């Protein structure tokens, strides 16, 4: 009997020590101070981080490469109000690291103040700015994700609580490739920063996906934006290329649009797909831009031109928008060979282009500017009728001289038709039910 008890005791002790010892080994791992690892390393070294959780904040002030082995999880947490990782030295690289920095604060999660920094496959959960770059040139952020994780306890979250996913100031020649930014303030914000490349990123549920302010030479290519207030906001910018992007469903906010140009000049916008937004393409106080071969599909307003001059538009397709185009005070634009599905042209010489021009009526926009409340009558029969009567100063309207008769073949729709099918099914069922009820009622009589 005693023997058995002894054995049980030994067994219990064994289990206990096992339970106690293993975490202590882990704790030792955890206690391994990342900052001292960095301090001990020689400049130019590569530090392979062992799997586990490391405590921030960390300052990197010599060229180093920090990486996790693929398949292993390395997490840096930060509860201070400093940046989780601050990079002050050129040519630092971080690879495959998860950063949890969820406290709401002013300092960003990653602060870069050096050139040639590479961030690769990072996963950033932030309650502030994701990556802030200040005077940081020729760096690269690729295949990383930045997701909002901050929580405000005592009041609803405000837009102004959030920071931008990537925030650049006086930072030139950087590349942002293959990143995903979700639920932040702006996806990528560039101020006083030139010649940056934004390619194949995914922007979702943000204020603005891509936001340029006082920049030039930015290239925005092959990105996808969904459910933001605005997909691409190009303001006070010059010589930007905006090509082959897809902006869909920017429609939840009263001021939403797919692409907005304001005070933007010499911008090239081509081959973009803009679908299901409040306004597809919004151009205000912008000049000398070339807008070609875009598909503007299924928006409430396809094109909105306000005080825009000397822009060229051709080969664009406006299909299934509630209003193809509206304009105000926009003379001297060259519109030619676009397809407007609401316009019925006549092609006499068989060249595929209409001999009748398509003029964009400024009536509604002028009215709304004077009395914003009249937006309620957007496309109402009375408004359409009045618009038809309004013909004054026609020579100053924006006019497509020779619209296309047919859309070119490459029009595609990207928003799924599932919701449509659902509502069709429900509608069908309701119809059957009501017929049945009427039938019953008639029989009872």
């Amino acid at each position: 009997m005693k023997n058995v008890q002894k054995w049980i005791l030994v067994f219990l002790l064994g289990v206990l020590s096992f339970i106690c010892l293993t975490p202590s080994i882990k704790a030792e791992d955890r206690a391994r101070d990342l900052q001292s690892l960095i301090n001990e390393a020689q400049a130019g070294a590569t530090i392979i981080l062992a799997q586990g959780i490391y405590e921030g904040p960390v300052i990197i002030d010599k060229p180093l490469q920090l990486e996790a082995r693929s398949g292993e999880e390395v997490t840096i947490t930060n509860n201070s109000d400093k940046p989780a990782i601050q990079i002050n030295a050129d040519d630092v690289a971080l690879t495959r690291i998860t950063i949890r920095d969820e406290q709401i604060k002013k300092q960003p999660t990653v602060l870069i103040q050096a050139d040639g920094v590479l961030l690769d496959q990072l996963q950033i959960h932030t309650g502030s700015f994701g990556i802030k770059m200040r005077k940081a040139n020729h760096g690269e952020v690729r295949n990383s994700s930045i997701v909002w994780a901050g929580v405000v306890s005592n009041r609803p979250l405000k837009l102004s609580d959030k920071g931008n996913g990537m925030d650049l100031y006086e930072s030139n020649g950087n590349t942002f490739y293959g990143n995903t930014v979700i639920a932040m303030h702006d996806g990528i914000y560039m101020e006083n920063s030139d010649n940056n490349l934004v390619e194949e990123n995914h922007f979702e549920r943000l204020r603005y996906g891509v936001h340029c302010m006082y920049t030039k030479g930015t290239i925005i290519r092959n990105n996808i934006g969904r459910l933001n207030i605005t997909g691409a906001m190009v303001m006070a910018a010059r010589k930007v290329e905006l090509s082959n992007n897809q902006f869909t469903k920017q429609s939840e906010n009263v001021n939403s649009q797919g692409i907005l140009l304001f005070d933007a000049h010499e911008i090239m916008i081509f081959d973009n797909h803009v679908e299901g937004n409040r306004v597809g393409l919004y151009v205000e106080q912008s000049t000398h831009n070339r807008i070609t071969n875009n598909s503007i599909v299924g928006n409430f307003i396809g094109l909105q031109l306000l005080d825009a001059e000397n822009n060229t538009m051709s080969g664009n397709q406006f299909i299934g928008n509630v209003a193809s185009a509206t304009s105000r005070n926009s003379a001297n634009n060259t519109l030619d060979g676009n397809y407007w599905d609401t316009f019925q042209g006549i092609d006499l010489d068989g060249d595929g282009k209409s001999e009748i021009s398509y003029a964009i009526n400024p009536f509604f926009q002028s009215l709304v500017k004077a009395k914003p409340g009249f937006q309620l009558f957007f496309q109402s029969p009375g408004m359409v009728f009045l618009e038809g009567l309004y013909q004054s100063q026609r020579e100053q309207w924006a006019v497509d001289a020779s619209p296309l008769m047919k859309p070119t073949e490459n029009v595609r729709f990207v928003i799924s038709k599932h919701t449509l099918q659902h509502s069709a099914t429900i509608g069908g069922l309701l119809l059957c039910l009501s017929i049945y009820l009427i039938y019953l009622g008639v029989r009872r009589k």
Partner: protein
Amino acid sequence: MKMKSFNAMLLVMVIVLLTSACGAKEYKPQEINEETDKCVICNMAVKDDPYATQIITKDGQSLKFDDIGCMNEWKVQNGTETVGAEFVRDHNSGNWLKYETAYYAYDAEYVTPMAYGVIAFESQAAAQAYITEQGKGELLSSADLKNHKWEVNRDMMDMENMEMHNESMHSDDSKEEMEMGHGTEGKDS
């Protein structure tokens, strides 16, 4: 008799109320609604932060701006005849202040939504404290703002950038174009 005097009093009260409402027309700033408000000038969403400013027109319309510079731009475009009152917000508390009674700190490098670099304060001391804390900037009153140039900081940054990073990226041509572009910018709008 009693009833009559009561009626008379009521009448007097109504008249007093009406006349006071008419005479001292008071303009009050509206709260910012981040869901719907956008800057009348630059189209950006107006955030519920201290950079937001507001004009209440004489017919009671509220025009909101995301930066004091945009409000100034509106006055340049539309004049001040229809303006009932102008409001800015204290940078520290976010309280609405009359444009005329606030104090301002300006520096080209202060970060504001449209980069005009002008920030409003409730008191002269608070503005001065901010300038001291930042180690740069100048103190302005609303009267001084009338003579302010309202330059956005890129114009100045450009010069620096051109000198600093001119190496490979920009030819002299583009430099000239940029400057021309900026020159016309102000006149366009």
